[in-house]
């Protein structure tokens, strides 16, 4: 009798242990499934996108999922629901994401930012980062803002302007500072001033006594049409022009004489300002498309003698204006849907305009099209005069800078850079390229151009 009790007790004990272990195993199995299911869906989503995007997209999603589920270890069901909701959304949208990204992810920056260093913001840029081997022949220095959440927000570089001599750059940052850099080394010489918001556009006048800047106002939810004028030496603001451009001022250009500032914006008007009296002297009216988005003027370029102001905008035309009579003298219609870049050659004999398709070279005197060049999607054109020879540097979203010989109308050098080119200025023989929150400088050597040209064209 007592033997039966003991056997029963032992059997009960064994049974309870087995059930306990089984339950535990089942729970862990279920938890494993709960964790595996969303990841599995993400992997499935990865399968639905082309191989070119698969790894970067999957890595991104997996990191987000990991972050979303972090700290929910004791809530398996919420974890499952959240994970499934996230992953299912991704699964449904995967193909659309790949389609929207297009064949190549242009702004992807793996190769560069991985090599970046975490220097403090205000140290002179780039002793450390210069050692980055970008494989660029002739690169003198490079600066790259550090990609780090909110910590590096003030080192994002927005605009660069050529300074008073061949050794200074004025650099506008997203934190509102305007800083002076030594062009030859890329090192910071001084913080000139601090403005109210991100500096979107900055330019020196001809004798470099004044700076004009367009600033996005942080606090204001209406767009600002104001242009700041500053003393170039002290950084003291001398005036804030209320330009009256409906929809914000967008571009600036000082006349070569230095007394007139041309401004334009989204409203398609071009206004000329006397920079000593701070008064508007003229308004150039010609953009009268019905849709007012079509009127947007992207670019302004003064001819080197200051008699002509060229404007280019969303409608794809280049217009030439007589700067004394304030009348439109010509309208040049190119093959681009919009004018992205506009520049005179250093000698003023050629006006280059470009957009997503072609780069067009015009004779500004006659308005004749000299040549249409297959230059890729050019964003920015910059004149360069080196050792008596005239060049135009054209940089694009395809991460390529092409140097064109103005006299020969020929491409004499092709430079590949790590990021899409946003803007360029030429300081002496140094080409400063602004791209992806940073900048780099390349020394242009006409002697090497010639050899490049010979090998490239087989001449």
């Amino acid at each position, binding site marked *: 009798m007592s033997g039966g009790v003991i056997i029963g007790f032992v059997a009960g004990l064994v049974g309870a242990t087995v059930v306990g272990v089984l339950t535990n195993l089942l729970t862990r199995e279920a938890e494993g499934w709960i964790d595996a299911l969303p990841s599995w869906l993400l992997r499935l989503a990865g399968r639905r996108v082309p191989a070119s995007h698969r790894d970067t997209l999957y890595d991104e999603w*997996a990191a987000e999922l990991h972050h979303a589920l972090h700290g929910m270890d004791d809530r398996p069901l919420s974890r499952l629901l959240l994970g499934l909701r996230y992953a299912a959304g991704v699964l*449904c949208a995967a193909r659309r*994401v790949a389609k929207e990204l297009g064949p190549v992810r242009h702004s*992807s920056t793996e190769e560069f930012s991985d090599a*970046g260093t975490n220097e403090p913001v205000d140290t002179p840029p780039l002793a450390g980062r210069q050692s980055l081997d970008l494989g660029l022949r002739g690169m003198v220095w490079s600066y790259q803002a550090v990609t780090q959440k909110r910590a590096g927000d003030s080192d994002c570089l927005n605009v660069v302007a050529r300074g008073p001599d061949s050794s200074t750059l004025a650099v506008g940052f*997203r934190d509102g500072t305007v800083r002076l850099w030594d062009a030859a080394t890329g090192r910071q010489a001084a913080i000139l001033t601090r403005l109210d918001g991100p500096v979107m556009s900055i330019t020196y006048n001809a004798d470099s006594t004044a700076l004009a800047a367009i600033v996005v106002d942080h606090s204001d939810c209406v*767009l600002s049409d104001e242009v700041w004028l500053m003393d170039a030496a002290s950084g003291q603001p001398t005036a804030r022009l209320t330009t009256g451009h*409906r929809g914000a001022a967008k571009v600036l250009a000082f006349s070569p004489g230095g007394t007139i500032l041309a401004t334009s914006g989204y409203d398609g008007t071009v206004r000329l300002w006397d920079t000593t009296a701070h008064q508007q002297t003229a308004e150039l*009216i010609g953009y009268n498309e019905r849709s007012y988005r079509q009127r947007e003027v992207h670019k302004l370029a003064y001819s080197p003698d200051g008699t002509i102001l060229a404007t280019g905008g969303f409608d794809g035309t280049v217009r030439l204006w007589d700067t004394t009579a304030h009348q439109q003298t010509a309208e040049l219609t190119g093959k681009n849907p919009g004018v992205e870049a506009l520049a005179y050659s250093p000698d003023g004999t050629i006006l280059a305009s470009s957009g997503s398709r072609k780069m067009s070279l015009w004779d500004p005197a006659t308005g004749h099209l000299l040549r249409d060049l297959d230059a890729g999607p050019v964003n920015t054109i910059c004149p360069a005069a080196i050792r008596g020879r005239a060049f135009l540097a054209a940089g694009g979203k395809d991460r390529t800078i092409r140097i064109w010989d103005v006299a020969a109308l020929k491409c004499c050098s092709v430079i590949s850079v790590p990021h899409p080119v946003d803007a360029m200025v030429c300081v002496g023989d140094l080409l400063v390229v602004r791209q992806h929150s940073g900048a780099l400088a390349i020394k242009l050597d006409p002697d090497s151009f010639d050899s490049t040209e010979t090998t490239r064209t087989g001449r």
Partner: protein
Amino acid sequence: MVLQMRVTMTVAKVLRVFLEDPAAQCYGLELMKATGLPSGSLYPVLARLERAGWVRSSREQIDPAAEGRPPRRYYELTPEGLEKARYELAALAEQLRPPGHRVPRFPQPEGGHA
């Protein structure tokens, strides 16, 4: 960039978050929380903005082993995107503004010097 960007309500919500601090970098999950958009709506919008050149993305620079988590992908406005986003949001706000509220200095599509 000539590529036209249609600013729908969904796009506007995302831009709005970016504009709150134009210098900040955000990752997808953060944007989802801030906009209330699900992953299936957010990622295509980010991809479209990235292709149009309004935002750009980069992978976080961390050592996954040291941090114990995979690196995220951060998105930030480009200078061009910052300008266009402000403009488009202001235009949208103007369209949606109840009658009777006027805001000075905002572009009027018709009239004036056009």
